[in-house]
């Protein structure tokens, strides 16, 4: 999912510490990395956010010019996974005594390949969208597929913009809970 700037230019500028390049990088990769980490952590939002924070620190520290986008994305996922592992290790120190009693160390999660995570999340989204009630699915389609404004949707439903915004927020929250819940169910062995 490269941005408008060629990857070699973007990464070279990032390696030089160019702030505009980092803004561009954020626009192109922040959400994607968060999604990846959500899949890797099995829907653990807090762990994903902490790992993302650490991964971005490492991006700043170690970024170098890349000529191919897929290589760059692979590198980012490696950084994200290692950040997650370090964060988990840090967290496990607090619960080491529990592990000593249970003698069941948490298994390493099966890390999805860089492309798999996105595909898995998109498939889950499609599944959860289709499971929504018709009016909620319609609302999301109007907003995100047909790119209708909230005002237009409100006019069609003969309601207020605030009511539409509120309903959109509720549906998004419902969809998020469903997605994260499904990730937790499908990857019970994931790190917490």
């Amino acid at each position, binding site marked *: 999912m490269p941005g408008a700037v060629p990857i070699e230019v973007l990464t070279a500028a*990032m390696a030089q*510490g160019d702030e505009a390049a980092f803004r561009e990088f*954020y626009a192109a990769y922040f959400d*994607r990395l968060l999604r990846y980490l959500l899949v890797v952590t099995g829907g653990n939002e807090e762990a994903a*956010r902490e790992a993302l924070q650490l991964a971005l620190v490492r991006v*700043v520290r170690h970024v170098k010019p890349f000529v191919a986008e897929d290589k760059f994305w692979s590198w980012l996922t490696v950084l994200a996974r290692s950040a997650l592992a370090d964060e988990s290790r840090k967290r496990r120190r607090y619960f080491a005594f529990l592990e000593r009693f249970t003698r069941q160390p948490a298994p390493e999660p099966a890390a999805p390949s860089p492309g798999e995570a996105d595909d898995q999340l998109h498939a889950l989204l499609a599944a959860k969208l289709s499971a929504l009630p018709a009016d909620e699915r319609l609302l999301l389609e109007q907003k995100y597929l047909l790119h209708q404004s909230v005002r237009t949707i409100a006019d069609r439903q003969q309601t207020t913009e605030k009511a539409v915004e509120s309903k959109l927020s509720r549906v998004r929250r419902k*969809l*998020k809970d469903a997605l994260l819940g499904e990730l937790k169910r499908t990857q019970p062995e994931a790190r917490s």
Partner: protein
Amino acid sequence: MSHKTDQDQLLAEVLAEASPADFRAALLAATLRQARRRRQFRVARQVVGVLAVLGLLAVFLGHQFSRPPVAPSTPAGTIAKSARPQAGYELVRTRPLPAAALVGTRKLSVPSRGWSLAPVTEVVTTRGGYRLLNDNELLAMLVGKPAVLIRTSPQTEELVFANAEDQKLLLKN
């Protein structure tokens, strides 16, 4: 939702729902701050590197120009250093002084020798060659020289001459 970009947009907004509102902005700000710091550090490191090179160059040039110039011909008999010392050794050349610059010595002949004889008088002092005079013996030595013996305390007396010349004569003898 056929377009993946639409799905991405929806996914991003769905996942951002009920998340800390400023998480993304705060993380971006922290990242930019870190990038700025790293850039400043890199620039500072480059400046320090350039300054170090310039400093070394200045020291080298200063060393080269502050070396005293080598005289074209060194005085006879002095040690002449080679103009440019080579690494690891220093070439030193010597040559003998001319005869005119040498100072020699020779043995004196016997007639020209001299001795000096100093007239020396030896004076020998002996211990206990004196005795104390009593008042009468003292006054007997002063016949013809009017004087009085004045007792100034039980142990001390003073001899006073009427004529100062008599006193001088007595002390001289």
